[in-house]
């Protein structure tokens, strides 16, 4: 295999929990607890998991929107975590992000033209005012909006249209990698499909690589080439999308998949019901983080943390007893 576009190695992010009158650090939240994966150019890696599993933090650490505590992130062979400010700025031309909330991620005081054009100005990608405007018009048309929309403000648009504006802004600098952080979860289903189709079209048109972060497994399955499942800061399974859905190896992935409601009353499936809630990430369970809820846990699961092993070709899982 050729060198991956992005390679994440043992990424960790610990947030300090402060308490007491002196605001001392009393504890740490292990939001990302040793995550490693590669993304090949042109593929879509889906990152799924439930709230608080660390999937969004992972995405932000890759861009250094949040500084990772340790670990390495290689983009085209260069370690992002060691870059200085200038190198990082240049890098952000190649790596862009779109956010979940299209209401909070667009500056309400700027026109759509200014929002999209800002990145072009920062990276000196427009020779003249006219060139800038032409490029903005071109981007708006690429994402299915009208040229005259550039003079309007974000509040004049619906959620789906705002997400298109966010996508146009990300595309402005012609990135190679797009980190999509829950890009459709705030949208209605009929609009969700429009945005997913747009993302697929753009990938084909511009040869983009996606890291697609979402909690909705059906959406992730639809759009991804490969999928990584996270639980409490760790990747528990990583596999080609179809393999993961056909033969999930990790008991957590299996339960997660079986919990997804199927929009067809004639399909009856056996549901694996997980007991209890996700444990507190300040004090994650010892050994395998999942052992407190795992239907097949054995005594030593609380002692030894399993590592990701290649159980089948291209199919990795972190479980002592599966595969």
């Amino acid at each position, binding site marked *: 295999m050729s060198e991956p576009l992005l390679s994440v190695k043992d990424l960790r992010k610990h947030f300090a929990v402060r308490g007491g009158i002196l605001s001392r650090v009393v504890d740490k939240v292990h939001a990302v607890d040793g995550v490693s994966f590669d993304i090949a150019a042109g593929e879509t890696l889906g990152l799924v998991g439930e709230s608080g599993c660390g999937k969004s933090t992972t995405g932000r650490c890759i861009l250094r929107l949040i500084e990772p505590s340790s670990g390495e992130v290689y983009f085209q062979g260069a370690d992002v975590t060691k870059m200085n400010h200038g190198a990082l700025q240049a890098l952000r031309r190649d790596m862009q992000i779109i956010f979940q909330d299209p209401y909070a991620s667009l500056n309400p005081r700027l026109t759509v033209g200014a929002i999209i054009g800002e990145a072009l100005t920062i990276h000196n990608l427009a020779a003249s005012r006219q060139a800038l405007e032409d490029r903005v018009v071109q981007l708006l048309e690429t994402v299915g909006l009208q040229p005259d929309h550039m003079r309007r403000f974000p509040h004049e648009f619906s959620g789906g249209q705002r997400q298109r504006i966010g996508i146009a802004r990300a595309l402005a600098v012609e990135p190679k990698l797009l980190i999509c952080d829950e890009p459709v979860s705030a949208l209605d289903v009929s609009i969700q499909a429009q945005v997913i189709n747009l993302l697929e079209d753009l990938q084909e048109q511009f040869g983009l690589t996606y890291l697609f972060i979402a*909690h909705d497994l059906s*959406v992730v399955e639809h759009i991804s080439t490969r999928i990584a499942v996270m639980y409490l800061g760790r990747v528990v399974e990583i596999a080609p999308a179809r393999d993961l859905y056909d033969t999930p190896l990790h008991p957590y992935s299996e339960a997660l998949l079986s919990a997804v*409601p199927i*929009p067809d009353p004639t399909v009856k499936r056996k549901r694996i019901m*997980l007991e209890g809630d996700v444990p507190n990430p300040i004090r994650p369970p010892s050994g395998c983080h999942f052992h407190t809820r795992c239907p097949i846990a054995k005594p030593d699961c609380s002692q030894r943390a399993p590592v990701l092993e290649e159980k089948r070709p291209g199919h990795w899982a972190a479980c002592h007893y599966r595969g």
Partner: protein
Amino acid sequence: MAEPLLDIRGLKTWFKTDDGMVRAVDGVDLHIDRGETLGVVGESGCGKTVTARSVLKLIDMPPGRFEEGKILWQGRDLIPLEQDEMNKIRAREIAIIFQEPMTSLNPVYTVGDQIAEVIELHQKLSRKQAMAGAAEMLRLVNIPNPQRRVNDYPHQFSGGMRQRVMIAMALSCQPKLLIADEPTTALDVTIQAQILELMQEMKERFGMAIMLITHAMGVVAETCQRVTVMYAGKVVEEAPVEALFGNPRHPYTQGLIRSIPRVDRAAEKKQRLEAIAGTVPSLLDPPPGCRFASRCKFAMDVCTQAMPPLKEVGPGHYVRCVL
């Protein structure tokens, strides 16, 4: 046929705003029989929540007002009832749970106090008996250590546990109808599965009917017997669940079902999602004719002239479309 438990006829709940009259619910007919689960589906702004809140008269008036229609509860119209009459029906006969359990619980009282308050008020029991009842309800909804947890505050519970508390509170007076307004939307998928199972269990135990309001077609397919689909303040289709998913007749329903990616079809060839073009129309002075016409791929001239009536196309299957 026996009289339905709840029979909503031609309900119009409108809101007066600075921009004009918003016709949030604009002539809705639906009924629920004893012991059945009716799903009310639609996207944001379709009027499903306003319909539900109208039943319990939880709409602020002004700006809202009942323009027309009847809400027959076991044959008796609720619309003319005074506050104190309504209070006899709320909780005791019709209870409601909401999407966001944290904002529906009072943060400064223990959950025991809040459940006991409902019991005390509606069943004329002493405080001590009511507290015992509260603990019993917590036990019923599978909250571990109910005797101890009655003294905890809402923030000490996780999202899923809070929704259990809400269910315990709603069921404490054994209502005949539970209105569940997006009860699992804020929850993770494994927790959603737990809550849906709990609702099913409680329904069997108490023999109540459920009006489940949701945008998730998967949840509807797995829990409801009948479904009402709403679009822009109108019912566009009503059918038994198998008929709705097996043979959807309204173009909007068809679009909704086809726009969702299916986890269980992972093995089949990947298809492009069928998105519904455009966005939901404004409910400010909507034009005559079918509200879906502007997004419908089958729209004809007649569609924009007059609102089509609901017509029966199969046993219990009604559709508002000229096709």
